[in-house]
């Protein structure tokens, strides 16, 4: 997936002179995960800038640059280091358009590695997308494959408003896929149905699509047909697609790596409980990270929801005949 991300940067910088890349080690080093590899050689030190070590600065500078019509694509080295930048995101990036009645805008993309599973050190396995999704005025996007990473990143850069782009670290190297560098963006604000099914709807995103699809395959062999939906844009939520699926299957399981309490799954469950209650034939189930701090890596596999947990949750909803 990492190559697809670098490719999307390259395409858009080639076609839009206003796109500028900033962040820690994005230049000569090409990013700690190599997401910006080769860009500085290609586009120069003004358009691909290594910044000093300060996240609030990266976000605040992005706001200032964007109000002048540039399109900053800023890398935050890991999601666990985003927090110093939240003030600028909540109080300015997400509000500048509204505050000035459209006079000044913030077409900014903030990219960051998301989630765990690669035996990284402390603070390198965060999934705090909820904190971002709760902020009005920004979009939050999380790709689940190289092709979607390429198409959604292009869409994010082209979007006239701020987009938080969360890149699942487990997919950076794991998933390989031929992606044609055709500059075709994918739509924001919509889900992708990864697998059709009739017995249960499973909504997930990012790296958890892997365990979920594995679970779906195994369920299939057990005669259970699961529909798997990749949320893709975590805010705003494309609830229509989910409601249609639930209307068909009557059962909903939500899977995410983030802690359960106020994870994005909570909003999905709430929307379905408000608007799709009568379609539900069994209680909604959330399979999520535990409501605790992501453990250091010796236990991370015990923290990240497993395919088995997903399978059991599906079996429970099916067993439940009300």
């Amino acid at each position, binding site marked *: 997936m990492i190559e697809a991300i670098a490719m999307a940067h390259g395409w858009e910088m080639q076609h839009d002179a206003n796109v500028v890349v900033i962040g820690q080690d994005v230049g000569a080093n090409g990013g700690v995960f190599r997401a910006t590899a080769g860009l500085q050689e290609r586009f120069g030190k003004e358009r691909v800038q290594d910044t000093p070590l300060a996240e609030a*600065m990266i976000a605040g*500078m992005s*706001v200032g640059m964007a109000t002048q019509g540039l399109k900053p694509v800023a890398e935050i080295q890991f999601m666990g280091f985003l927090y110093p930048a939240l003030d*600028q995101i909540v109080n300015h990036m997400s509000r500048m358009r*509204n505050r000035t*009645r459209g006079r000044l805008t913030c077409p900014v993309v903030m990219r960051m590695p998301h989630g765990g599973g690669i035996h990284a050190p402390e603070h390198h396995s965060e999934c705090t997308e909820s904190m971002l999704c709760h902020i009005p*005025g920004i979009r939050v996007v999380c790709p689940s494959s190289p092709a979607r990473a390429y198409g959604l990143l292009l869409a994010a850069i082209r979007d*006239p408003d701020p987009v938080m782009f969360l890149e699942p670290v487990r997919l950076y190297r794991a998933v390989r896929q031929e992606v044609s560098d055709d500059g075709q963006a994918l739509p924001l604000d919509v889900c992708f149905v990864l697998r059709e099914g009739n017995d249960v709807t499973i909504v997930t995103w990012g790296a958890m699509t892997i365990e979920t699809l594995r679970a779906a395959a195994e369920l299939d062999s057990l005669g259970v047909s699961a529909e798997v939906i990749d949320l893709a844009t975590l805010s*705003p939520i494309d*609830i229509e697609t989910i409601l249609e699926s639930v209307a068909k299957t009557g059962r909903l399981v939500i899977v995410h790596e983030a802690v359960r309490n106020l994870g994005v799954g909570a909003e999905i469950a709430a929307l379905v409980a408000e608007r799709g209650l009568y379609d539900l034939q069994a209680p909604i189930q959330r399979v999520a990270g535990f409501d605790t701090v992501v453990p250091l890596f010796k236990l991370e596999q015990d923290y990240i929801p497993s395919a088995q947990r997903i399978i059991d949750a599906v079996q429970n909803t099916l067993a439940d005949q009300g």
Partner: protein
Amino acid sequence: MRTVAEFKIQYRQVLDPQGRIVAALPAFAADTDEVLRMYRAMTMARVFDAKAMNLQRTGQLGTYASCLGHEATHIAVGAAMAAEDILAPVYREVGTQLWRGVTMREILTYWGGDERGNDFAIPRQDFPWCVPIATQTLHAAGAAMAFKIRKQPRVAVAYIGDGGTSEGAFAEALNVAGAANLPAVFVIVNNGWAISLPVAAQTKAQTLAQKAIAAGIPGMQVDGNDVFAVRQVVAEALDAARLGRGPCVIEALTYRLSDHTTADDASRYRSEAQVKQAWELEPLIRVRAFLVNAGIWDAAQEESLLRSCAEQVEAAVSAYFSAAKPSTDAMFEHLFAVKPAHLLEQRATARKYGTKSSGH
């Protein structure tokens, strides 16, 4: 032990509190029309400020932060800047805003609780009022980065208060401005107080100009009640930045003659004596004395100036009053360029339950 680095902070004053010239007069100050222009603007800021305070007290304006005593710094910065430069204000810089072309009506509209006050008709690219302390300094650095990338001869000017210099964001802004050699000028308005905290308790630094040293950029101090000195220092800083010589920090020493805002009661934490003393140094006295000594100003002119300022303020106030309360749609119109579906539903709900009252 070897000395590996040495630094100096210098202070400039041109007009002393009595209006005596204590340093070489800058060219612009030799042009009496220009001096009159600045004096009139300082007076206008003060008259407007008094009216705004009054509107708040009578429940016709929201919380308001008075610029009383800051007129020299505010007008000097405005006068030194070029129209194409951009300003990142905080919440108190009425004088600079008026000079830049922000209207009194817009100012009242914002502090009256209506976002339309930030949709400046004239300085279209200036940043809006900024309440979260110090954050604006990073916006200025970002704009300056855009100017540098596009090779535009423009400068971004950010204001910050003495209290604001304690926020990490300010240090980050100075550091990146230095590291990237950005065309940015940071004006610290040291008015002695951050709400109830005196600057001596805010930091052990004996000057705030020396905050610049941490970033390896120049810093200097100026008498913030001296409109000549501030304009001269800021103009030099802008020229240097415009020529690619990088950013700098200017600490303007002045005094907050008012309460922090209309929500504050300064008598709780500072002495009347201190305020009384500060009044003797306030910025209008000395310019007026300079003009009178130059034989180009008298009581009659002063009186007619005050009258015309009052008239302009009154006109702006009635324009402010005449504006209808924004419709509930205003909450949704400018959140995104492309509205997600759920916002349309919510807009309908807001219409259904919208109150008629102005919210006052």
